[in-house]
């Protein structure tokens, strides 16, 4: 089974994130980039499926600036076989629609049965790329998986819901997004880190991937960040002093907030 894992380099989870004043995109220069945490689970799941099946390849796919190669290297260190990096200045500022367009085109250059992604990235948190990729490629959509079972050309998942889970089944090719409950990602070992240096890495411009320049980037995006502002500082809470009527005052407050 050939599997593609989409990974994304995001600003360090704990770093203070900013938008650039000039074009209102995420400032990726000033902060350390890390692999989007949920993508680690996606890589792990791909490796487990491959190891259980005993054949096929795991290809890492990312779209991002030159620096994103660090995230590719981490996925290769964990054990993925090869990587495709879509890198082009024209991609800067792409929204989810434009990104899914470019990724779908890049997927067209790779042979795959399964595409696995984290359910969302910690920077944009749109959680729509898996569904968009399924739409654009015509592959089955299996999202929010907390468990994946592959048997021949059938993929069965447990889809996490608010109250429990649904069992959803589809034939390959399929796009699977995973939640963090699914596994415990491995650490890149020293051996893996050294082996990653020798693994094939293909770099694609948008022209190589067959992406129309007008359909990506800030100009090619369907959405636009009109304005942004820093989150206002937290307001001091209201303190209720109990003078024998504390309970009544609390009930009054809850009622005024329409909580009871």
């Amino acid at each position, binding site marked *: 089974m050939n599997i593609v894992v989409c990974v994304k380099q995001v600003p360090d989870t704990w770093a203070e994130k900013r938008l650039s004043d000039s074009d209102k995109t995420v400032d990726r220069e000033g902060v350390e980039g890390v692999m989007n945490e949920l993508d680690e689970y996606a890589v792990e799941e791909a490796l487990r499926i491959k190891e259980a099946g005993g054949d096929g390849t795991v290809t890492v796919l990312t779209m991002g600036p030159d620096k994103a190669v660090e995230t590719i290297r981490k996925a290769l260190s964990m054990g993925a076989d090869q990587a495709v990096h879509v890198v082009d200045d024209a991609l800067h500022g792409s929204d989810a629609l434009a990104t899914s367009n470019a990724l779908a085109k890049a997927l067209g250059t790779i042979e795959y049965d399964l595409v696995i992604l984290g359910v969302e990235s910690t920077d944009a948190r749109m959680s729509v790329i898996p569904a968009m990729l399924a739409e654009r490629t015509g592959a089955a959509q299996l999202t929010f998986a907390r468990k994946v079972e592959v048997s021949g050309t059938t993929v069965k998942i447990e889809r996490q819901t608010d109250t429990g889970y649904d069992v959803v089944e589809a034939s390959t090719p399929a796009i699977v997004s995973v939640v963090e409950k699914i596994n415990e990602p491995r*650490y890149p*070992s020293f*051996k893996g*880190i*050294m082996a990653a*240096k020798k693994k094939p890495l293909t770099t694609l411009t948008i022209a190589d991937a067959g992406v129309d320049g007008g359909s990506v980037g800030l100009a090619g995006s369907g959405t636009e960040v009109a304005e942004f502002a820093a989150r206002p500082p937290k307001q001091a809470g209201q303190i209720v002093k109990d003078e024998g009527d504390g309970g009544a005052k609390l009930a009054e407050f809850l009622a005024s907030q329409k909580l009871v």
Partner: protein
Amino acid sequence: MTDVWNTPERVALRQTVRDFTVREIVPYLDQWEDDGEVPRSLHKAAAAAGLLGISTPESLGGQGGDAIDNMIVQEEMLYTGASSGLLSALFTHGIAIPHILHSGDRYLIDRYAKPALAGEKIGSLAVTEPDAGSDVSAIRTRAVRDGDEYVVNGAKTFITSSTRADFVTTVVRTGDEAHHGISLIVVDTDSPGFTVVRRLRKMGWLCSDTGELAYVDVRVPARNMIGGEGSGFGQVATQFGGERLGLAVHAYGVAQRALDLTIEHVRNRIAFGKPLIAKQVVRHKLVEMTRAVDVSRTYAHTIAERIVNGEQGLFAEAAMAKNQCVEACEFVVNEAVQLHGGMGYMRDSEVERHYRDARILGIGGGATEVMNDLIAKALFG
């Protein structure tokens, strides 16, 4: 000049070590200190992450790195909040199996070294006896050949990880000559006649179990002897160099951690209306601590680089690195407790643990005085 300590691969290795330490060690360390030992599951997890045997060739079950990679694993664990006691417990194989690996004996490698590197077996090294510590030539535990076996009788003490061990690489006397009468033999701990007499209670290194061992007519297969009869002293002396450099890493690693914790504390602690770090006496103290750590680390790194570049016989240098780093560590952990004030004396503060743990570093792996004798001999004959 390229910084061999921070190549892209080593930066990635440091990240793996940090992630592992934060997830698998730090949350449980207090519990293990109370338990008096680390669980076997930690050895398995560390093996799965490829952290055991970093500098052992892949053909022998290791990761294929070198002494620099090995030091990076240890220092990064300490910088991230592990302790020297934890390292001594988790990496005991670092002193228990090098002689086996070096011997090239496939039987012993497959039976003991590889399982230790896979986190499946725990090994100890037993040198010290009630009447012989740094003076290895004085040991009395005796192995007498009887057919295809040796019969071992004697006692060992202060043996790290021995209450959990599956095998103990034991220094025994097979002849009467002080040095040439010494041999190394691997003893399975389930052998009849082998007992852990007691678990020793210590000042620090609480999560690292330490045992006193008795050997009463323990029959050990002759093929468990490492190298030939009488080659033990040479093997032990050769591997001591690595152990000493390892303890130097413990010392500067712990010192760096204690320094980091202290800087954080004095930034946050307000006294007389200002953070402590605003006071000149505190600032100067932090500078002295930083200088002690950085100079010590730089020297130890240099020795590792020379070893990786193929230089042999750096025994005096390894011993100097140990003494230099231990002295720096003792200074830094003491000042760290001082600058933490009353909090530094509490069991809840991490520097209190480092202070207790650090005291062994100038004693274990050859005492400071023994190191000085060794250095003097190399310098002045």
